[in-house]
């Protein structure tokens, strides 16, 4: 796909994340092209999605760390019908639970491939999709160099 500066950006009508003050650094990271998760400085637990307190030990002493953005598909669904109204023009689209190499799981979409190619345990890597000035979503595509 080639960018065409003359084409106006279509207004984004799908639901945007409802950010909290403790999740804001995650979304700021996405804007910079970095996938961030919280690491508890007391118990070393990685927390995702972002928590106000570490879900393992309730410490507030957490710092943001950059993760690889590589992982695999734990499960997925290609949606063909009865989707939320705003996603009608995306049909069919792939919703997946991705398990990152670091162990945390996140929901996202699998993009840049035909839905029929997606399968459980498929290796994927993060790709950032700017949807509005405020939000860039972390999505996943098949890993470029799948390990043998």
């Amino acid at each position, binding site marked *: 796909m080639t960018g065409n500066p003359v084409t106006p950006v279509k207004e984004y009508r799908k639901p945007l*994340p409802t950010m909290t003050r403790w*999740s804001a650094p995650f979304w700021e990271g996405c804007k910079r092209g970095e996938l961030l998760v919280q690491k508890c400085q007391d118990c070393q637990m990685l927390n995702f*999605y972002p928590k106000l307190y570490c879900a393992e030990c309730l410490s507030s002493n957490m710092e943001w760390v950059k993760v690889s953005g590589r992982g695999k598909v734990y*499960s997925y669904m290609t*949606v063909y*019908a*009865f989707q939320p109204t705003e996603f009608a023009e995306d049909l069919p689209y792939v919703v997946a639970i991705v398990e990152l190499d670091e162990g945390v799981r*996140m929901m996202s979409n699998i993009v840049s491939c035909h839905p029929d190619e997606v399968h*459980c345990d498929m290796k994927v890597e993060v790709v950032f999709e700017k949807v509005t000035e405020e939000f860039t*979503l972390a999505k996943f595509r098949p890993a470029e160099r799948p390990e043998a």
Partner: protein
Amino acid sequence: MASFKGKVAVVGFGEVPTGKFPNRPCLASALESCRQAILDSGIDKNEIDTIMPTGTFYNRRYNTDMVFSKLVEELGLLGKAKSNMQVFAGGSSSSSMLKTATGLIHAGLAKTVLCVQSDKTGSAPVQEMIDLFATFGIPEEWETPYGFFMGGCGSLFATRYMSETGTTHEQIASVVVSMRKWAALNPNAMLRRELTLDEVMSSKTVATNLTTREGNVLADGGAAFIVTTAERAKDLRNPPVYPLGFGGRVCHYGISQDRDLTRLGFAEAAREAYEMAGITAKDVDIAEIYDGYPIFPLITLEGLGICRRGEAGSFVMEGNTWPGGKMPMTTNGGMLGQGHTAAGGGMAVFVEAIRQLMMKAGERQVKGAKIAVETSMGGTFMDSQVIVLGREIP
């Protein structure tokens, strides 16, 4: 503290037909269910000292009426009832209500508890209900932006389960065939026509490994049951049904955070419940299993130890859970047959377990059923609740 076993009993139940009844007020469903339960048990309604209405989704004002003691006033228990309290866990509310009622009665904090559910999700404005179930239980920040919705739950669970166990989509879909066979025998069910496996598989695809006929249909409904002391139950009309064991695990709020979508918490929950009841899976006569989507009875059958891992699909497809099968399952037809009345989906399965053990299930009565295992799940299948019920104390 000595066990509650043999000290507490369910003594009556009521249920209105499930379906789309736009002219039947939700309050009428609640009151008719309560009235039936009171008459069924033979207890004097003035003995009810605790009213426990679970949550209603279709209308916030009606739900607030339930929280604010509307039923106490309607049932003429003003000045007599000690408490009106909402106990609510979505689809697993019936389990929470029985657990709470059992604990209160055993502790002497209540003597007779009326548990009731009513909802009208079938004839509420369609778009409102679609929006409600598209967003409820889905983390707004972490899942909604990617187009996930509650109706897709069956797909994400089924896909991983198939990948790990080798189960086929046909085997999963055969659960719908089983549910509809039972629903055909249930006068309170909404979907009473039997379906062939081909009809289930060839219906419109919603998402990967999920067809339209594998989805449940929203409906209006209501049900109630009465719990009291075993001592009081002796003089009442029905054979008492004893809660024998409880087990449960909450495994996620957001589905993406569950560690094992192919097992959930059923093995741990069942172990607890069986141990408390003093039984094993071999003692179970009837499995009243919560469905929602056909994948869940398979996961549950395995967690309960009724089937080995990966074998539940063929077990159901071979007809073992049908009427006349060796392990009758979800004999009201579940949400896939009776209909989905929000928290009432689990309530209907629970009431059916009581009905079977009281030998009042009519055409679908399982002869000689003495021990039932009953399950429920709430939200996006966030929890795995297991209850063992019996006509006798093992």
